[in-house]
């Protein structure tokens, strides 16, 4: 049954300073609310405990996409729609575009945000695998100032993350990848639109004289967090790719993931399809 809307407070600060002041003056009181595409669904099903929300939607400092020769920076409130409409994102970060396109439908893409997707911390989320593979960094801000942290390692367990009570994610920065690299993104769901993934794999790879120079792999829906596969990457780096190397990589990959049975799929299916996707990615290098 739907939750009772009279039980939720929400205020809508107009500036980042106001948001930060709220967070620091009453620690633990406020829950941040971006585009609502996850939280409103919880409310609909009666699973959202009464809370005090700070709506970020009107905070201009959290919007906008900027770029330099070396990197691109997204305001935390950047929507999937805005990502797709930006020509430089399309040119340099195709995995983010593909993830954005396959998140919900167009109406969801106009409300769902990168910062919200990260902070909601679902291991099935669509944008985190690409962000991990692009070596994203997060800017975390509180009244005391801002700090940049690597996105890899930010999530520490199911819905757990290294974010202070008075902090919020303000920006996401991704370095421009080597233009010679291969970008691979595949989401497996029941259909292309509106589906939550059974498994999603993102990969970036660069070969040099027949050997793997750089490889980065991340997977969603196969562990408690979106997982960067460091062991598989370390094994592959410097190797020439052939059937036996790919088979061995697949075994190591299988040891890194911990897929479970749930409403969308089974652990067995996810493990097998994960290995298939890894093979597909490596064969594309």
């Amino acid at each position, binding site marked *: 049954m739907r939750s009772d809307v009279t039980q939720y*407070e929400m205020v809508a600060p107009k500036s980042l300073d106001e948001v930060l002041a709220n967070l620091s003056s009453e620690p633990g009181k406020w829950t941040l609310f971006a585009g609502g595409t996850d939280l*409103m669904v919880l409310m609909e099903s009666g699973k959202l405990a009464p809370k005090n929300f700070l709506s970020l939607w009107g905070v201009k400092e959290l919007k906008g996409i900027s770029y330099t020769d070396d990197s691109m920076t997204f305001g935390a409130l950047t929507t999937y729609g805005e990502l797709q409409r930006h020509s430089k994102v399309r040119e340099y970060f195709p995995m983010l575009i593909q993830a954005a396109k396959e998140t919900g439908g*167009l109406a969801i893409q106009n*409300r769902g945000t990168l910062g919200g997707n990260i902070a909601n911390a679902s291991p099935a989320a669509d944008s985190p695998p690409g962000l991990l593979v692009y070596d994203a960094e997060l800017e975390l801000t509180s009244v005391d100032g801002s700090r940049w942290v690597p996105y890899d390692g930010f999530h520490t367990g199911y819905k757990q993350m290294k974010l202070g009570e008075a902090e919020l994610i303000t920006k996401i920065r991704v370095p421009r990848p080597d233009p010679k690299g291969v970008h691979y993104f595949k989401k497996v769901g029941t259909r292309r639109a509106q589906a939550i993934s059974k498994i999603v794999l993102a990969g970036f790879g660069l070969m040099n004289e027949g050997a793997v120079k750089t490889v980065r792999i991340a997977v969603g829906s196969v562990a408690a967090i979106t997982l960067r596969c460091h062991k598989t990457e370390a094994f592959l780096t410097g190797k020439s790719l052939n059937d036996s190397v790919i088979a061995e990589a697949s075994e190591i990959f299988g040891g890194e993931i911990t897929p479970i049975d749930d409403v969308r799929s089974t652990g067995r299916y996810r493990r097998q399809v994960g290995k298939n996707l890894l093979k597909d990615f490596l064969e594309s290098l």
Partner: protein
Amino acid sequence: MVSVAKVNFDCTINGEKKTISAYPMARLLDVIREDCELTGTKEGCGEGECGACTIMIDGELVNSCLVPALQADGAEIKTIEGVATGEQLHVVQESFVVNNGAQCGICTPGMIMAALKLLEEHPDPSPDDIRHGLAGNLCRCTGYMKIFESVLAACQSMKQEV
């Protein structure tokens, strides 16, 4: 249980300025249907999956079931009631009528909003553009072909008008 206070804010709905008084986390869908008495916008799933409640905010498609009322402060909202001009149906609406694009009608307002956005961005859409543009809207009656044909026919009539 103590209830929170209602908030007042202004927005524009179908070109008309409105002052809304609502609980901040009330669904915009309910505000539109119950407070503004614009019942053209329908509720299907209530969780952003089906697109029946699709409206436009500041020119972009959104699911009104997922928007808390307070986030509509200052918004320019367009619902299905704002699509026709008086008694004159929009070409897309007319096309759904002529081509049997509506059966039970629950998905139709959302479909029309999505089709309007599609034709605004792709005046000459490919079959894939149409499928992509309508992918967030579910219909349990038509099997989609009549809807697809309605949008295609609307696009052809719009080209003839120019």
